[in-house]
């Protein structure tokens, strides 16, 4: 398929620099495979060398490239430009994070909310009963959550809220370390915890790695109910 010209309206400025934020337009030709991140890379190289945006892995594993694409939180590296509606493409920094300027944010609000010692490794669900090298106790893998914060940006809850990603992580910790049950349920049941959830389910819809945070929040609520029933 031939290349197609697309126009991006990108929010420039803002953040600690004190510079006012405004949209600027950049047009370029893109092939059918190009992602929003590819487009940003080429815009930076050819038109806007100072453009700030976050990226690292380019395949949906690091969680750095979240941004608002036409008003919706998305990973730039997994969003194909061809899949977006015809017309201008509007890019803004991810909501819910600290803005650094242009499309770049700092994920301090998300990372600070994680329970300090939650493990990033879990048992692999693939071929669990398979034979293993003698040195390997269990096949393991990284957690699904890539800590991108899209769920936080999508969540409609306005009050102070730990947010879907952190609560999902708490539920994963509960599964992995049942001995910490009391402490974990205490954190989940705090005023900024699971009861803030309005069941809008936006988090599960936007999550790029199928964490289904809403499901984890519901499970935590059930566990909390069991506790209060037992009292």
């Amino acid at each position: 398929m031939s290349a197609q010209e697309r126009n991006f309206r990108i929010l420039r400025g803002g953040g600690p620099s004190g510079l006012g934020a405004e949209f600027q337009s950049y047009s370029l030709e893109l092939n059918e495979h190009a992602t929003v991140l590819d487009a940003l890379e080429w815009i930076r190289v050819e038109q806007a060398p100072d453009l700030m945006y976050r990226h690292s892995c380019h395949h949906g594993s690091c969680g750095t490239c979240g941004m608002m694409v036409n008003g919706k939180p998305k990973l730039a590296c997994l969003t194909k430009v061809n899949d977006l509606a015809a017309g201008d493409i509007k890019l803004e920094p991810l909501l819910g994070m600290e803005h650094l300027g242009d499309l770049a944010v700092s994920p301090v609000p998300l990372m600070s909310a994680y329970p300090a010692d939650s493990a990033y490794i879990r048992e692999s669900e693939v071929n669990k009963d398979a034979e293993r090298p003698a040195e390997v106790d269990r096949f393991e893998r990284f957690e699904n959550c890539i800590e991108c914060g899209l769920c936080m940006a999508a969540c409609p809850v306005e009050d102070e809220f730990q947010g879907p990603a952190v609560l999902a992580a708490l539920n994963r910790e509960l599964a992995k370390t049942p001995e910490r049950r009391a402490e974990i349920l205490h954190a989940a049941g705090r005023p900024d915890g699971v009861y803030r959830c309005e069941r809008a389910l936006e988090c599960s819809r936007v999550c790029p790695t199928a964490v289904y945070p809403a499901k984890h929040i519901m499970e935590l609520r059930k566990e909390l109910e069991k506790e209060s029933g037992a009292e």
Partner: protein
Amino acid sequence: MKKYHVVVIGGGGTGAAIAYDLIKRGLHATVLDRGELTSGTTGRHHGQLHCGARYAVGDREIARECMEETNTLRKIASESLESNYGLFVALNDEDEDFAPTFIEACLESGIPAEKVPRKKALLMEPKLSHKIGTVVQVPDGTIDAWRLPLQFFAGAQKGGAVIRPFCPVTGIDIEDGRAVAVRIRDLVQQKDERIEADLIVNATGAWAPQITKFAGIDIPITPAPGTMVAVRKRLCNMVISHLHPSGDGDIIVPQRGLSIIGTTQYKTDDPDDIKVPREDVDFLYRCADEMVPEFSKQPFHAAWIAARPLAGKSESIEDGRGLSRDFVCVNHAQHDNVHGFMSVIGGKATVLRAMAEKTVDAVCQDLGVQEPCTTTETPLPSHREYYRKGAK
């Protein structure tokens, strides 16, 4: 003792590990990257924790170092690794002839390579092709390309290092044959700044010549990009490699819910001007299917590309594969008469800590600091600590 200030240009894995080693030896460190941390080659690599088996036939020393570093990373950064081992599988007669040489080279490099019966291999990894012959098990694994360097950054920051993404270096000030300061554009604050340094380390990988140019130095580096393709299903837990002398499309790395085949290699002039050649995608699918036949039937996830820095000029390189993938630390005092300036290029993500140790040894020698490296001992903080409120 004077607290020396070392400025590290480049916030990839190499820069991260150097900053951590510097602060552990009592020096002050500032890291600068033009973009987000690990937005160069580091974040985009294939994600294989190389135990060294892939390199053993060609270079026992590189292989030995990979094995040692694999063991060290398992101790200090286990949260950034899927430690599931790997299988090398023979696919044809030539591979079978190569197998004994391969096993011998691994054992001589201290890598516990072990032949496993075909039947057992298929019980370990049921999705493997039934056409495989000899299978050799080695202690490979998977790296989280973003979180491993972030653990080093978190450790460095905790020790007082200043880490500044979105601060491209725009110049280097030379006075009386010595590099004394870097010029940056701070994109976050939107202002220019001059940062004085007792020593400057250029850890910009494939971009290294752009930095040395600021000091009037020409270093021969050729960017050599390679493609990777991920599909949306974890087909194996172990890293699956083609048992042959290294070539293209011969490694499948599982990571989270993905399986990733890589890689290819071509040469270019500008590490920023790289696009996935579409023919690479079909080629890599074919290679993957030879080892794991279901690979290409899974939903496509992503195709991306990353540039290696190869030592040597483009015109003098016949085929990039022949070139050493080892790392070099150049002290520009010796080679180019610019003091207080070093460049570190090449290597592998797996050996980031060892590269940093050698570099900081050279830094300390240059500055007259006598402190041993201590980065193999203590586990690194979690990657999240880098961004925890108040951590800066």
